[in-house]
């Protein structure tokens, strides 16, 4: 490739002056940097237009007192100062952390477990793998409605079954008690998120050469030792990527909460994303909502940086020798 690009440039410099026009274009087209820019342009335009611009606009709005139907004035950090002192915003920050932490850990443990199970050769392998993906395929809003019925205070199928068996005597108040509601929403989120983690980790597991496992087995390693010293180290890069995504999705979850509780009861399940929407659109305080959304960025960045520097910075993962 590089030889080819260099070639014509040399020819061009020797070409007669008459063909200067075409050669300029040619020269440009043969310039690696220019060509690189040119090829990047469509993607860059899309990113700028649909990602950078809205993000920038959102951050900018966070520094204004814009209301729905009224443009705002630049007010520096007033929104942020206000939100830090706001009890509901504080609660939503706590909820978001609790939700993300517990749900991510559960999703990781269950996902890894599921991946290890699926990695074995079992009956109807591909069928089972396809079925496992189902919760991830169903649109969130739909599965959220299903969970809304499952958690209903009057019609919950879980409560119904348990009362039929005589295990409980009154219906469980899944979404009516603050802690129950937090755990119930986490349950629904985990149900939805596990397949994603499991399938990605499964893909990672299959890239591990069987020879390594065989060698370890020959050396007399127990299954736990093989998992700990062969599987896990080789899986870390995938884990890092998958868990970064998982944490990001969980941290910014919206639909599930909005369908199940709208942030209730008593704001116990309000996440930053749902509160941001509630303040900005129905509440009309665009600036404040945008500020709340902006406040999520540092946490998200931290999660990304942690995964990149914490989990992927091993020398051998960068291609160097150990």
């Amino acid at each position, binding site marked *: 490739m590089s030889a080819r690009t260099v070639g014509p440039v040399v020819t061009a410099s020797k070409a007669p002056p008459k063909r200067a026009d075409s050669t300029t274009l040619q020269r440009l087209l043969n310039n690696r940097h220019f060509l690189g820019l040119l090829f990047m342009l469509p993607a860059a335009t899309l990113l700028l237009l649909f990602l950078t611009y809205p993000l920038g606009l959102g951050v900018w709005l966070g520094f204004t007192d814009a209301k*729905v139907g009224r443009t705002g004035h630049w007010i520096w950090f007033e929104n942020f100062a206000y939100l830090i002192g706001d*009890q509901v915003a504080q609660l939503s920050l706590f909820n978001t952390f609790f939700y993300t932490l517990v749900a991510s850990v559960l999703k990781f443990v269950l996902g890894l477990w599921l991946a290890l199970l699926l990695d074995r050769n079992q009956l109807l392998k591909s069928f089972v793998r396809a079925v496992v993906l189902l919760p991830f395929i169903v649109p969130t809003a739909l599965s959220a409605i299903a969970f809304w019925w499952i958690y*209903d205070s009057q*019609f919950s199928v879980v409560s119904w079954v348990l009362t039929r068996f005589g295990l409980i005597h009154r219906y469980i108040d899944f979404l*009516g008690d603050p802690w129950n509601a937090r755990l119930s929403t986490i349950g629904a989120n985990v149900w939805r998120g596990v397949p994603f983690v499991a399938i990605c980790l499964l893909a990672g597991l299959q890239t591990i050469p069987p020879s390594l496992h065989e060698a370890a087995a020959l050396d007399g390693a127990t299954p736990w030792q093989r998992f700990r010293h062969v599987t896990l180290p080789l899986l870390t890069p995938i884990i890092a990527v998958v868990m970064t995504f998982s944490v990001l999705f969980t941290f910014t979850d919206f639909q599930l909460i909005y369908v199940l*509780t709208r*942030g209730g009861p008593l704001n116990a399940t309000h996440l930053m994303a749902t509160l941001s929407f509630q303040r900005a659109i129905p*509440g009309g305080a665009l600036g404040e909502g945008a500020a709340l959304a902006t406040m999520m960025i540092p946490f998200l960045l931290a999660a990304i940086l942690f995964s990149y520097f914490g989990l992927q910075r091993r020398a051998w993962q960068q291609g160097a020798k150990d």
Partner: protein
Amino acid sequence: MAKVTRRKFIKTGSTITAGAVVAPLIWVKEAQAQWNSSPEKGARLRVLRWSRFVQGDIDQYMANVKKFTDKYGIEVRVDNESWEDVRPKAAVAANTGGGPDIILGTYDDANLYPDKLVDVTDLCEYLGKKYSGWYPVCEAYLKPDHKHWIGVPLGAAGSMIVYRESHVKAAGFSTFPKDTVGFLKLLQALKEKGTPAGFALGHATGDANTWCHWLIWTFGAKLVDEKNNVVINSPETLAALEYGKEMYATFAPGTLSWLDPSNNKAFIDEQISVTNNGISIYFATKNSKDPKVNALTADINHSSYPAGPAGVSSACHLFMNQMIFKYTKYPKAAKEFIRFMMEDEQYGAWLQAAIGYVAHPLVAYEKNSIWTSDPKVTPYSDACKLLRPPGYAGQLGYASAGALADFIVVDMVAEAASGQRPAKEAAERAQKRAERYYKV
């Protein structure tokens, strides 16, 4: 209302206007001009409205639209959105200066961008005079400066008490109690009998807001006073919250998690025998193919909210308005459209078709036969009459909209009722939260 022919009315109308020259001359002239003028040539209109609660509503609305198109030759496109989605859309339209010419909004939408709306004072005065006047709440919502109308009231979707007659009788009450003392006794008796009541205390935009506001108002409490000072932390509020706590003790389990549809489901499944709701439960059972559900119809009845120490049975029913945006190219056609839709020939038929989901804002329409044809529907006719805006008794605007959207009153009632916080603490917290919106 006595039979007034249109011609006779216009005569009296013009004398009244002539008498009202005390007001600035130009303004009257302008109003007069718009009043007499016909729609712009080649006008076309786009209307965005909340999507129907009942099929008859949209069918009749569209029939009226067609009548308008046939009469004036003006093409009207009507788009529908779920009522909670109209607010952001209307706001974007106001913000960007483009969109539907007319938007049928809810609550205090118009108060968020009054300067973006066409002044409809002439139209509202005309309609008010012709149809025996607007209910007072219409002015609170749409005549914020007491001089200019910024939108035309459309009506309100009432949320009244829905109850099972047989259960109330079994609990020892021959009629539904009219005051809070009797109401609480009824709730307690119902709980005893194993047929409890249930009122939503989750973030249910419609149901929870309606009854929680009734609760504080009927004890004489309010979020803000006339000057927008937050006064929710008051002895009246504490009394209301203590009462709410006693109410909650009689509720079916799980009401803290209830969203808008929850009480409908529980009522139709016979798990609760008293709740607050639009007329939808009644019609759901009436039209149900399931004989068991259909059988409930005869036993369902409605009542307005009982009156407490302050003698108030008002609630914040869902108010609906019609706004014309200034960016429209055809303001006259838009006004003509709204006028046409509000006239008896059209509006009366629409009220009928909406079978009680929507209550009229103009006094004369209380004579409409929909309110007497079925006595069970009658309580809903008072929705506009017994309506207070959520930001009562202050001015509506960003603060009231924000406080409502943040469920400050609902959360306060829920906290105190469920015993998560003592009533005093819940009221203090609500005071602080509201003060942030009303920026002290």
